[in-house]
């Protein structure tokens, strides 16, 4: 099929659309280019100090940059969000023993390497202070003030025997994996830390 060189189908269509009555012209108009910021979902899986730190730096910065940010707290990552003063969690002996072996709470995180009975985290904390690096607790407070949403994993809550009152204030409702998958399927950027 050959067309006359001057034939421009889009220009033709626009020309035609201009002639049609108002209600129809409205229907043919392209939708308003509404720029919706992409969401960020950080899946906090690890309870290690250095990874918790990285998650909270990214979460607070994303929220500060106007990116709607959610943190899905699961497995060891959920232990970080137990109140600092809660020592033993769970109802049966295994749950209690696990919390004994790895103290929950954001101020009691251990390094994955070179923990040396707390010597590593102490040195990290001292260096952080010296170099003006905000501690995880401070970053968490900033992140929450900037609107970062905390979504605890229901399954982890159950498995570790964690109760709502064990967790820090300002947490959202516990959710499951399907909630996270829906966010990702709808285009949220995922980070698995």
């Amino acid at each position: 099929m050959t067309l006359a060189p001057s034939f421009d189908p889009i220009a033709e269509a626009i020309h035609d659309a201009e002639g049609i009555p108002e209600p129809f012209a409205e229907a043919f108009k392209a939708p308003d280019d509404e720029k919706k910021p992409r969401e960020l979902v950080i899946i906090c899986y690890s309870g290690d100090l250095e990874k918790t730190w990285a998650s909270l730096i990214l979460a607070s910065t994303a929220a500060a940059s106007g990116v709607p940010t959610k943190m899905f707290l699961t497995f060891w990552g959920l232990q970080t969000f137990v109140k600092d003063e809660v020592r033993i969690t769970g109802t049966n002996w295994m749950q209690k023993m696990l919390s004994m072996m790895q103290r929950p709470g954001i101020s009691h995180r251990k390094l994955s390497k070179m923990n040396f009975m707390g010597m590593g985290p102490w040195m990290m904390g001292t260096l952080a202070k010296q170099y003006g690096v905000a501690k995880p607790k401070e970053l968490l407070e900033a992140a929450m003030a900037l609107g970062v949403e905390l979504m605890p994993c229901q399954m982890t809550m159950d498995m570790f025997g964690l109760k709502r009152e064990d967790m820090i204030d300002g947490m959202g409702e516990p959710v499951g994996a399907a909630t996270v998958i829906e966010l990702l399927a709808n285009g949220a950027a995922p980070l698995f830390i």
Partner: protein
Amino acid sequence: MSVLEIAAQVDARGLSCPMPIVKTAQAVKTVASGELVEVLATDPGSQRDFVAWSRSTGHELVEQTTEGNVHRFVIRRK
């Protein structure tokens, strides 16, 4: 230094990433649209970070100057 009407100030000197940005985002929330926030920071990375941050938030980076090791940013809330 030009004379600008500053509505809020952030002293982030001595603070490391991401606190200059986090504190600025909090300060910007306290001023009205069109008002200015002045930030002082010593983090060398902030020079690039504030440019990126203003692009992603839409707040305008009105001024960016450096005196010694102190970087000064003036931001206009969108």
